[in-house]
């Protein structure tokens, strides 16, 4: 049977208590929210810690107010939040196809942003990692995906919410031993598959704030993988635009799940401001997004194919923004093939 390793579980009631608990653990701890990511890795013996600090009982992390979403809000709560979906309709589809209904009942927004990077060599049991060969990110000397890499992990960022928040211009608020700080989410993610973001270990994600002008953006999130439920993205593209007549006034693009972090493609986006969204200019953007994406063999599908699919997903996102009724059929989304479609 798969069992959890032993750890001490702390249940602070406030952000301050949690930070104090973290400082007491001298770096050897993990925060726990829904646990749908962390505990899977724990069961596999990946980078486990002796102390786990649960954030489930901290009221300040819950709740949504306008564009402010508490870090502890579950994906299920957000999915049922009609006002929120009305303001930011792009989340409807993003949430509906994220993990599975069951996981969304427990999984939280902060946990989703911080979901650990994934890799076919890493997300395995201890036995399998030993048989296949341990790697840099967990317990080995060298990367298996890019042979010879001893200081850079190429594991794939696989969260679905971050790219959407990013194109909507959201900020993230962190609380830590030195107080609170807020930064654009697009500056939050940095580094390789081990470093991942600028957050200090003790810092807690308090909230995500979407600016209210994002309500007038047209946004799309296009995710690609083999199965419509359960599967993490093999790659995805988030796009948002503000149109001025038939011209792009503002454009925001993220290529997701093709690198260690969601790729904020500012240069590509800026280059195409002022263009129209006709087929020809869409193809130019498609080519640029593809060029900027350099997937490696950390997931099941071959990298060259994933890169090609980045192009297809970009095209679909832009067509959806343009208002095409059929931006490109996703399997399983044709009418009549959706058992129990989102209620």
């Amino acid at each position, binding site marked *: 049977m798969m069992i959890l390793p032993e750890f001490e579980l702390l249940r602070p009631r406030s952000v301050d208590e949690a930070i104090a608990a973290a400082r007491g653990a001298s770096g050897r701890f993990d925060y726990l929210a829904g646990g749908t990511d962390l505990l899977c890795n724990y069961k596999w013996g990946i980078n486990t810690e002796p102390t786990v600090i649960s954030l489930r009982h901290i009221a300040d992390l819950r709740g949504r107010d306008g564009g402010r979403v508490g870090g502890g809000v579950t994906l299920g709560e957000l999915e049922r939040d009609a006002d929120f979906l009305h303001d930011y309709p792009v989340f409807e589809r993003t949430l509906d196809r994220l993990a599975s209904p069951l996981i969304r009942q427990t999984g939280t927004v902060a946990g989703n942003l911080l979901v650990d990077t994934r890799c076919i060599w890493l997300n395995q*049991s201890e036995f399998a990692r030993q048989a296949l060969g341990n790697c840099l990110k967990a317990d080995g000397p060298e990367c298996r995906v890019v042979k010879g890499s001893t200081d850079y992990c190429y594991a794939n960022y696989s969260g679905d919410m971050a790219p959407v928040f990013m194109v909507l211009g959201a900020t993230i608020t962190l609380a830590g031993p030195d107080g609170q700080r807020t930064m654009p989410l697009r500056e939050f993610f940095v580094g390789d598959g081990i470093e991942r973001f600028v957050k200090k270990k003790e810092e807690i994600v308090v909230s995500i704030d979407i600016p209210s002008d994002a309500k007038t953006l047209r946004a799309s999130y296009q995710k690609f993988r083999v199965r419509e439920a359960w599967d993490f993205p093999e790659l995805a593209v988030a796009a948002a635009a503000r149109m001025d007549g038939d011209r792009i006034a503002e454009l925001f693009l993220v290529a997701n799940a093709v690198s260690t972090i969601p790729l904020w493609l500012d240069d590509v986006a800026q280059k195409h401001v002022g263009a129209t969204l006709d087929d020809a200019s869409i193809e130019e953007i498609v080519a640029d997004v593809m060029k900027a994406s350099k997937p490696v063999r950390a997931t099941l599908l071959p990298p060259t194919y994933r890169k090609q699919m980045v192009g297809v997903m970009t095209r679909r996102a832009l067509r959806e923004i343009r208002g095409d009724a059929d931006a490109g059929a996703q399997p399983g989304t044709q009418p009549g*093939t959706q058992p129990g479609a989102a209620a």
Partner: protein
Amino acid sequence: MTQGFKVVGRRLPLVDSWKKVTGAAVYGDDVRFPNTLICRLLRSTLPHARILRIDTSAAEAIPGVRAIVTGADASARFGVLPISQDEEALAIEKVRYVGDIVAAVAADDEETARQGVAAIEVVYERLPDYFDIDEGLDPVEEPIHAWTRDGSNCQKRVDQHFGDVDAALDAGKVKPQGHFSFIGVGHAFTEPHSVTAVPEPDGRMTLYTPTQVPHYVHRALAKVLEMPMHRIKVFRTAVGGGFGGKSDPFPHEMAVCLLARKIQRPIRLTFDREEIFLTNRGRHPGIVDVQIPVSEDGKILAMDVNAVIDGGAFGSFGVVTTYYNGIFSQGPYKVPEFRYSGRRVYTNKAPCGAMRGHGAVNARYAIESVLDMAAEELNLDPIEMRLDNVLEPYSKTTNEFRITSNGIVECLERCRDESEWPSKKGNLPFGKGIGVGCGFFISGSALPIHQTRTPQSTVHLQIDVDGGVTAHSMGAEIGQGSDTVIAIAVAEVLGLTMDFIRVRSDDSDTAPLDLGAYSSRGCFMIGNAAREAALVIRKKLSRAAERLSGHPADDFDFEDAKLIALSDPSIVISYFEALTEALADNGALIAKGWYQSPRMGGSFKGAGAGLAPAYSFNASVAEVDVDLETGLVTCPRIWLAHDCGRALNPLAVEGQIEGCIHMGLGQALMEEMRYSKGRISNPHLLDYKILGPFETPEMHVLIVESEDKEGPFGAKESGEGPLLPVLPAIGNALYNAIGYRAYDLPIRPEKVFAHLEKMRKSETGFSKTWETNGR
């Protein structure tokens, strides 16, 4: 008995479903005994290595570690087939794949058992690894098993030739061929293997195990423990799915009993998902080459089939699989000349074995694909061409399979009509396709694995004053509904409602022999045995009614718990009146029924393989949608018509067919056991992809009833056969949609995408330039 059935043919919930849906069923891991120790296994992380030394001293010193066994504790080899007894409870001299069991540790709890496993030190000498089937046919430096001939890793060779295939190849107007390759797939059942061994105070040993084959486990335990069978009890717990993955006696079953005997305490072991993949016994990966010459008017002249299959490290059912990869190619068609060459090669990978549609699935995909090539070349409709070639009922195949009832024509016609094939085939836009496939499968293997004259199935019935009928059988209920078949047969014969019948099929001490749940034998064999037993009771009750009424015994019909005189319906004796009379001066009514297949088959080498008292037949028509931008293939709807002889319980038959569709689509579209240098690299259900709800199509299940003369109430199998036509229907539909023939499974989106890109850039672009004919 009158013709109109009272219970047979009704849609009934399975008799064990109440327990399962309320959570009351006791599965492997629900078994609890006081003082139980928890077992964990040390498995090899090397594919092929000699064990030089095992040091368990550090593990034994851990507080809470109570006992450890290794290969030194059991020397006897075992295996499901008498001809390949090549498995060891714990590796003796060498390990043969990543996952091979080296030691078993019993401890106070799971965590301590894990620590014990980690503390065992094993010194290995690496041996050359063999992962590739091609190299397995030639002599190698260190054969995986010492007994393979000529120093190669080839375990089994089958060569059969009927008639003159070369002449037929010369004569054929068209002779399409294909080279197909298949990746291994696993059963992906829900319940992990979970066993408890209990040393009884009187020295006996009891093993609780969710097995499909209690009898073979019983035999293997006797051999490995070196104990007589009567000193061992096998108790089959509720089984959370098997599909062939629980139809071997397993090393871990041996290991927990060895531990229990050593420490004299109950031992429990529950696998995690990864260990299921390591234990495997899934469908063999392999290569199948097929060539089929066909005459101008669409008649199949011959089949030439060649298969090389990758057995993994042990024999399991593999010798049978080697036969099944070829010999089932013939049905449901008339194949005048036939040649088959099959090879099974040992490799240093997880052992393969029997899986739903055992041995027949991959070859069927190849055959049905090549048949479609012939239809295209000849400008014939694939369904009409198939209809022109089918075997007749009560006929014989070239390799002397005795064909009895056969509903293949109705299967094809209903699929054709219900799917509106004539209006779709040839008229669907680029990217949408429709395809057909057929299938043919045994309804129980006529020859038992151990060639004795003991019947293959026996059922005991017992009725006492309460009027309830207790049926005893060792038929393994694994969710497929064999307990329900027993209950239906008994209730039908005795004119009782289902609540009178209680089935006990779990305990080898009280149940009469049954060979288990494999080769789709349950319904046919256990059903017949139950029916026979019930007829004996019926006679006893009729005689009692005669004594009470003076009316002749053989003139009573049984209905609604009453015995009603056929010639004079005013004469009615209630079931309880008859029973009370029958019990008088006699005691409980006891009866026995058994089933044994009649003699059949040819006299050539290997003639026994594939013989069955009846065969099921089926056809499927599937539609596919190809996402032209991504290459992802989905199946929006599928029709599957299956001739099950008679549906004793249509609800159960539909469930089986739906399950087969789901599994077949999984193998066609996404399931694969990936290996990296002999190590399974996706041993969990996130990366080993079975179809999810969104990928599951609209299913149109069509039941065809050909009323088999020897089947119980006319019934045949429906648990495995329906899987066979699914894969080729998808492959053929994909070809119809975009002109891409998938020569390897699963169908990979990146390959479909590459094909589409090539077409997009070609002169004709996305237009259907193939299959313009054939309607």
